[in-house]
């Protein structure tokens, strides 16, 4: 029998139902594997004790036949989701002693379905980054690394690395500008950022409220379907959550792509696009065409403004969302301060890392009197145009196919990225538009580079039409025959 930690969620569920092994055995196996693989630095906090309790409860339920949808499945939770009585840090010094007295809605939904939580996964500090290098707890190593350590992507780098290295059966992620999709692509696994409003944001440490969305990171398309079904749903504690029924996403995987129109935006093929990326993109289109889908070139004319728009709006919201980390009520407080202003300045200077401070400053600047109209307001208008681009495109296609990232995983400490943050921001070029438009988007592995590193394909859907994405993704997955780690 293969190592039970290498099963997918659906395989593990089947095995548990057939009593081939217990959740306790499965959980213990993961905990051992986590212990043996701490070099990846995927977890910030391991919660072995609660995991074992949850596993025992799951085994009772399997014995009693009252098992729920995710009964006994060991998951890793991005450390941006507040988990009751389990430390939640957002990978920041400023929250490194914070233990929430409440549970986020998404993680509560998973618990209600019987999931086991192995621990809290590493990420970029406050989810700000594309390489997991801004974490106060150090970088995560991509399991695909060969001679030198590579980044897993970010911000859900710990989630993607943990899933790829089988340190959990699946994980939660969050995606503000690509934070699920980019690490999924870099680590050769799958992830979906659902439609804005699909998953509740209640209890998720906020980065940019109008862009943040939770989603699963898992080994395959089916696991994403199983997890998303559990995570999603209307929540009256989040006023931006939508009262839309959550369908059985797995059932869409049996659908047919014949008759669907797949859009390929010409703006996503700029001159100088990595030929490997372009080749895989075309190959993905061919797979779908061979199955009877129609391939159509579409235009998203405002694409070139997306990054600039994103890097005005996201920091603006972040500068306000992160104001509460002030050392007054919880979290880190700089010691020995006599005056309130000093307490704020020193707590926040010492408590936040460089990238978070940079974004707070950018955000504060673009909202300042005299600059608001030139930056924030203009960016908001551009956001609307980018949204409208997609809505127009969806008049002539059902799903949009693009690469997830223009590059593969790069080495930790890459000089050009560290010296100029813009180079890091450019990696988000294919993903940020989706968040600005609030759309659902999938990333799944399509093949390896010449260097043997995974590339991801992105499928973008209409609002709340995750179902079609699962349909198309299942076909691409079957045709690409990508071999996971």
């Amino acid at each position: 029998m293969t190592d039970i930690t290498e099963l997918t969620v659906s395989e593990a569920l089947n095995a548990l139902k057939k009593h081939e092994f217990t959740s306790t055995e499965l959980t213990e196996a993961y905990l051992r594997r986590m212990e043996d693989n701490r070099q990846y630095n995927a977890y910030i906090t391991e919660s072995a004790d609660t995991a074992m309790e949850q596993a025992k409860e799951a085994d009772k339920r399997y014995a009693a036949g009252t098992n729920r949808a995710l009964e006994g499945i060991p998951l890793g939770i991005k450390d941006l989701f507040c988990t009751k009585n389990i430390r939640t840090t957002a990978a920041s010094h400023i929250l490194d002693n914070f233990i929430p007295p409440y549970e986020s809605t998404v993680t509560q939904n998973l618990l209600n379905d019987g999931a086991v939580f192995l621990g809290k996964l590493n990420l970029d500090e406050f989810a700000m980054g594309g390489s997991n290098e801004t974490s106060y707890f150090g970088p995560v190593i991509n399991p695909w690394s060969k001679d030198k350590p590579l980044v897993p992507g970010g911000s859900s780098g710990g989630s993607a690395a943990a899933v790829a290295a089988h340190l959990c059966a699946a994980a939660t992620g969050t995606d503000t500008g690509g934070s699920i999709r980019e690490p999924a692509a870099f680590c050769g696994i799958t992830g979906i950022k659902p439609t804005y409003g699909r998953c509740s944001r209640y209890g998720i440490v906020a980065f940019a409220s109008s862009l943040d969305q939770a989603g699963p990171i898992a080994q395959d398309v089916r696991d994403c379907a199983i997890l998303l079904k559990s995570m999603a749903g209307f929540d009256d504690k989040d006023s931006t959550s939508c009262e839309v029924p959550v369908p059985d996403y797995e059932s869409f995987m049996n659908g047919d792509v014949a008759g669907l129109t797949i859009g390929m935006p010409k703006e996503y093929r700029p001159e100088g696009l990595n030929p490997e990326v372009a080749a895989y993109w075309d190959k993905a289109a061919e797979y779908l065409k061979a199955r009877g889908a129609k391939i159509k070139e579409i235009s998203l004319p405002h694409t070139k403004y997306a990054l600039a728009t994103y890097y005005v709006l996201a920091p603006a919201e972040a500068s306000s969302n992160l104001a509460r980390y002030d050392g007054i009520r919880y979290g880190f407080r700089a010691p020995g301060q006599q005056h309130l202003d000093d307490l704020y300045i020193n707590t926040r200077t010492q408590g936040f890392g460089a990238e978070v401070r940079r974004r707070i400053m950018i955000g504060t600047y673009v909202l300042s009197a005299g600059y608001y109209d030139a930056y924030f307001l203009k960016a908001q208008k551009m956001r609307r145009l980018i949204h409208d681009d997609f809505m127009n495109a969806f008049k002539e296609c059902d799903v949009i196919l693009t690469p997830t990232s223009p590059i593969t995983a790069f080495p930790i400490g890459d000089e050009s990225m560290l010296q100029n943050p813009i180079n890091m921001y450019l990696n988000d070029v294919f993903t940020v538009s989706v968040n600005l438009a609030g759309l659902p988007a999938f990333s799944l592995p399509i093949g390896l580079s010449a260097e043997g590193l995974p590339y991801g394909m992105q499928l973008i859907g209409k609002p709340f039409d995750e179902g079609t994405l699962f349909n198309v993704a299942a076909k691409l997955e079957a045709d690409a025959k990508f071999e996971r780690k």
Partner: protein
Amino acid sequence: MSEYIITTSKGKWEVIVGLEIHCQIISKSKIFSSASTEFGDDPNVNVSFVDAGMPGMLPTLNKECVRQAVKTGLGLNAKINKYSEFSRKNYFYADMPTDYQITQFRYPIVGEGEITVDLSDGSSKKIGIERMHIEQDAGKSIHDLNPTKSYIDLNRAGVGLMEIVTKPDFRSPEEAGAFLRKLRSIVRYLGTCDGNMDEGSMRCDVNVSVRPYGSTELRPRSEMKNVNSVKFVMQAIENEAKRHVEIYENGGKIEQETRQFDPTTGQSKLMRKKEFAHDYRYFPEPDLPPLVLSDEYIEGIKAEMIELPDAKKQRFITTMGLTPYDAAVLCENKEHAEFFEKAATGHDAKKVANWMMSDFFAMLNKKRLDIAQSPVSAENLGKLVELISKEVISGKIAKDVFEIMAQTGEDPEKIVEEKGLKQVTDTGAIEKIIDDVIASNPDNVSAYKNGKTNLAGWFVGQVIKLSQGKANPGIVNKLVREKLDK
């Protein structure tokens, strides 16, 4: 209307005032959380994770607060905006847990409106409302409990506020005072704010500037924060206007600034100059969708609106025959107006009004009671007036009966019955007393007959005295004259 002009040896000055009033919304729970709004509980008892600004917590809008705001907007005769938006006002302070306040900025829930205020000279004036928006309150910092520490109470953090901004329409302290009293009366009528300025549930910022009399320019203003009584508002305007005039007349300049009013001295001191004004970096609150109200919703609230002081006053004048002054006094307070209406139903309204505004209010004042605690019920006050109207008792006896009612809370009919205070209207009985008085005072009878006719009053007094006050004075008067003139 009498003008309020500051006249000095150097010139005449006009005062320009605008007010910003924060009214705490009456609601069971806070505007963006389910924590209680109870006042006076132990510190930090009514605080939810949302109010404490915990990571990942999100605001959800309390529909009751929206309803209260719409009601208030209608009470201000203002436009209700079907589309409004929440914004964040960013600033750091220890009693503001998220370090931003959720408020409304570009798109407030209530637009322009108008309130009529009554002035002491009998005139009235319309005061424009610029806008009203809803927002959350901050907590309280307590700095005087410990020499090195500050304490924070978040019970108030997140309580709903309505901020009403007037146009700069006031030209005197009196107008501003009258407006505040009127506004307080309206929100109390509506039950949308308790209007208690001393408890901080209604707080006023005062903007004052002056200009040479006759000019139309608008000069820089100073804003005085949290002036917490009608009296202090009037005092703050008077003193601040004088300060401006003095500075101008000495060749100085006024710059826009924020000042702190000191109630012990009646003077204000500088808080911050314009160049140190906060940059609040307002932007639309991404955690809350725009607030969109339907016509049906607004109409529904309109249909439930109760009669407000102005309408009630008008009705008391036209259908109940009260003088404008009496009607205004009775209508300022909803409970007073309702008590009056209950008491006056089926009785002589004007007489009831007179009784309420004299003996009744005097009694409440003396006993330091609210009208709700009055020992004399509205029904019983009405009955008392009825007893007078029907000449069952005299006005004089009525005062005695009222005294007893105030002590015992008893029904006046019962008091009159049990104490035998019924006015004697039986002419036979009265005639008998008159005959006795005439018979035993022959000297005065002859004096009367010799022209000292004003002695009739003496005879009347004697008769009433002998009747122990029960003889109907009108009848006694008539019969005494008839008998003496015989």
